[in-house]
């Protein structure tokens, strides 16, 4: 596994939708690199014959009768929205000029 560089952190921040200043990148890159080094010790500990565990307790799919149940009223669902209009969440322009 490769070390995590400052440029990697900048790219990941874009993917994760978190704006980062130069100061943020300076501060977080070193810490993240150390954490990645620490967790990288895992590689190869368990051979490919060991199955993966995604979930600690065996689970089955959950089904129920297809009947109408009470759900959150639209006004309640919108009650915490930064901005709403006509029973919808209102957001700024979705596509930028370059899109």
């Amino acid at each position, binding site marked *: *596994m490769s070390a*995590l560089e400052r440029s*990697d*952190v900048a790219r*990941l*921040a*874009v*993917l*994760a*939708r*978190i*704006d*980062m200043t130069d100061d*943020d990148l300076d*501060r*977080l890159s070193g*810490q*993240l690199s*150390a*954490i*990645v080094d*620490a*967790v*990288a*010790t*895992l*590689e*190869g*500990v*368990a*051979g490919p014959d*060991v*199955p*993966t*565990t*995604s*979930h*600690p*307790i065996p*689970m089955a799919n*959950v089904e*129920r009768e297809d009947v109408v149940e009470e759900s*959150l009223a639209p006004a*309640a*669902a919108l*009650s*915490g*929205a*930064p*901005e709403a209009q006509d029973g919808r*969440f209102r*957001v*700024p*322009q*979705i*596509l*930028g000029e370059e899109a």
Partner: protein
Amino acid sequence: MTDWTRATAAHMADALAAGEVTSSQLTQAHLDRIAAVDGDIHAFLYVNAERALATASAVDADRAAGVSLPRLAGVPIAIKDVVVTEGLPTTAGSRILEGWIPPYDATVARKVREARMPILGKTNMDEFAMGSSTEHSAYGPTHNPWDLDRIPGGSGGGSAAALAAFEAPLAIGSDTGGSIRQPASVTGTVGVKPTYGGVSRYGAIALASSLDQLGPCGRTVLDTAMLHEVMGGHDPHDATSLREPVPGAVAAAREGASGDLNGVRIGVIRELGGEGYQDGVRQRFEETLDAARGAGATIVEVSCPSFEYALAAYYLILPAEASSNLAKFDGVRFGLRVERETVERTMAATRAAGFGDEVKRRVILGTYALSAGYYDAYYGSAQRVRTLIQRDFNAAFEQADVLVSPTTPTTPFKLGERIDDPLAMYLNDVATIPANLAGIPGMSLPAGLAPEDGLPVGFQLLAPAHQDARLYRVGGAVEALLTPSWGGPLTGLAPELAMTTEVAK
């Protein structure tokens, strides 16, 4: 006059039923205590005084009218701010949810209301439960009632400190890698992480969905058992909720209270002790084992060699799941919005302003671990190690009914000591994380005070999945063996706190 804030929840319930005290008196006593000490402790992010008193007086009126009431009706409770509560601000310790008033109740919040327990308020926590000290709360840290300069543990430091400071007799916590047990350990209180799926997580703000579990916190094993039975049980709103009845926690705690451990096999996990564990922690742990042996238990040593890799596996799985779970905090449907010209830029600006450093670190790390080309090397490896850890537990439980270790390697450290060193902070959870990776239940209960610093030491009990009752059976016995030398629950030995007249926020 009785200081009701010092009573156990079980005693409060009995006194309420016997008419010796009213819920209004109990609730007011706790609100007064919060007003007097929480300026220094900062266990609460929100105090729910008016509605708590309204619940209390309704319970009192029903009791006076002879209405049949649940066992804990009228006993106040504090709720960790990770639990969504209708009408009460819920932030999960994050700036991004500041001022949010949820339009619905988590299932555990509904159960607390159905149990007719006055909700005193919402307790402080590390932001989105990422941390071991509450120092990652966007609203400032909680202070340990045993020493205000020290951490109360985390992420549920607010719930544990509220118990240790006698601001609440019961509290709800959440445990993803030890966030109930580690705060219990460093505050001299009791906390239980149930079997994965044992308590509904509907309405609990998710950190890592394959690890998270809500659980009960108290000052005694019996009190914790009583709250466990209120919280637990199947919930159709949570797809991971177990379809099995709530374990008989209260009956097990009462059985354990005899102090008899004949026929019980206790396995000491070799890898969770020794080097890196503080002398006083080891001493109290060994003394607790001696007491258990004296009460008839058989002590065996077990080995779980894969635990060496548990911390690394956890710090891949957790950030990976958290990076996905936290995608919903984007300034569209609730919470903070930092407006920019497009929605994408709004999201990135909102998350930059709303998330603290630890959240940013883990989201970036999780995004990395899940990215193309690294997925198998990181997330895949961690999931294979998870299987090895489960196998270690299965083998160990062949030899023992419960497994034990110190809950934390050290007593509480000073606030600020590890805040700039994430890896040092993560080491706090080395003994608690394996249970989350395997989905098994665990308890921390007090083992005494470390001789060198006079601070609490926690004793961790682990049981096989679905065997939560064993924790209460053995924990109840250990508590009965240890508490006589302390004159009651360990929290009774905590130093008196300065009383101020500052009104709680």
